[in-house]
């Protein structure tokens, strides 16, 4: 079996990730931050260590500004719903966003938010002139994916930050597809809010993710969208003001966070640069191989430096669902077909509503895996 669905979730998980999760339940089973006994403190230490590791990996100077959430969707919602006033605010986003960005923004738009979607070119590249123009009237927030989950296109988030800051807007980046696979230095890029998921490039389990808040951003501007127990300021019946407690509600996913910490530690040891080099080599091989099959149309940039390892394609005369089914049944190649929760991106590509076949390589794949996938696509295309 060849797993090429790392853009959905990375697999297989590393043995140390599994060990960290079972270890948390076996040995550190207390509720982190709720009690003063040793098991609670041990659990709290594991959660805190994960904050430090994430801060180190993603360039956050203060680990207390690493807010842990159940996934990137929660992180994006906490940021957008907490920050925005739909009656007065204007938001600019891009034409390749995932539904985790578009659905909350469309819901706010229905309440009065002024929402501008800046178009992207046919390979997903953002039209930076249109972005600058869209920002002329000012904005409260710019929301941009770091990379498309459909065709891998990287957006120039550093340049977007400059344009956003020039009009006094904040930048929220959805790093679901890039954290752990592309080096990210959030302060150097000017990212005010960085939302990430734990179960993709960061190699952790599902049910983990977070939001990193820049040191300059006053956390009081983000209203907590939920509230509840934090283990702190228990005498007060309102949500505490300090981070991370302000934006963490109720008991967290301790074993998941422990596993995430092990995944991030692996990345720090191995090096995100090395991950990137590995994935670029695999992507180049995939693009070269698929490019030789005449009836295959590929989407996204052909330059591997401008994209992630997520490759989208169609085969002329074959529905995407048929291709995905045959890849799995006949060749043991696991892909994802359809709209990938990103109808906006598929409208940009011109592949709405059928979608594409997505082959997303990751750290666990080899060149031999890519060759099998290319051979399988060639055979399906020749039938």
């Amino acid at each position, binding site marked *: 079996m060849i797993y090429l669905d790392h853009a959905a979730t990375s697999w297989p998980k590393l043995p140390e990730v599994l060990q960290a999760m079972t270890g948390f339940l076996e040995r550190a089973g207390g509720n982190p931050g709720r009690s*003063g006994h040793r098991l609670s403190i041990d659990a709290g230490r594991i959660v805190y260590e994960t904050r430090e590791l994430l801060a180190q990996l993603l360039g956050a100077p203060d*680990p207390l500004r690493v807010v842990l959430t159940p996934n990137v969707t929660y992180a994006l919602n906490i940021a957008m719903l907490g920050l925005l006033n739909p009656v007065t605010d204007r938001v600019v986003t891009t034409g390749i966003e995932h539904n985790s960005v578009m659905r909350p923004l469309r819901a706010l738009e229905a309440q009065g938010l002024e929402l501008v979607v800046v178009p992207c070119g046919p390979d997903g590249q953002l039209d930076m002139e249109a972005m600058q123009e869209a920002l002329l009237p000012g904005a409260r927030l710019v929301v941009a994916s770091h990379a498309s989950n459909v065709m891998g296109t990287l957006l120039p988030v550093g340049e977007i930050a400059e344009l956003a800051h020039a009009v006094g807007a904040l930048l929220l980046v959805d790093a679901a597809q890039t954290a752990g696979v592309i080096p990210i230095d959030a302060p150097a890029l000017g990212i005010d809010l960085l939302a990430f998921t734990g179960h993709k490039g960061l190699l952790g389990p599902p049910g983990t993710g977070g939001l990193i808040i820049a040191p300059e951003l006053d956390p009081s501007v983000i209203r907590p969208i939920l509230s509840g127990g934090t*283990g702190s300021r228990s005498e007060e019946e309102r949500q505490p003001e300090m981070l991370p407690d302000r934006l963490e509600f109720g008991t967290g996913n301790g074993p998941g966070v422990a596993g995430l910490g092990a995944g991030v530690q692996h990345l720090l040891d191995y090096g995100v640069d090395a991950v990137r080099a590995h994935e670029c080599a695999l992507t180049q091989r995939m693009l070269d191989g698929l490019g030789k099959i005449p009836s295959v149309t590929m989407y996204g940039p052909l330059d591997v430096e401008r994209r992630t390892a997520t490759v989208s394609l169609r085969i002329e005369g074959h529905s995407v669902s048929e291709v995905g089914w045959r890849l799995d049944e006949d060749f043991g190649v696991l892909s994802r077909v359809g709209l990938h929760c990103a109808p906006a991106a598929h409208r940009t590509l011109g592949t709405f509503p059928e979608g594409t076949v997505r082959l997303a390589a990751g750290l666990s794949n080899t060149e031999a895996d890519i060759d099998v996938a290319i051979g399988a696509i060639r055979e399906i295309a020749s039938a």
Partner: protein
Amino acid sequence: MSDFGVVLLPSTAAALRSEKVLQQANLQIRLIPVPRELSSNCGIAVRFTWVDRDDVEAALARAQVDYEAILPL
């Protein structure tokens, strides 16, 4: 008065950050449940040897850890 002092912190994450920062500064410290007679916003506090008070303050300041109070135990 005992030989110990205590750092009161706003959150568990801040208490655990303090623990690490102070250990890295080679200070003898221990996490303890916050004594109920002292008010704090968080369930755990950092106990240290009172003679180290200046070093504790300096280490926390260097790491920019916000604490609520430093008190003798």
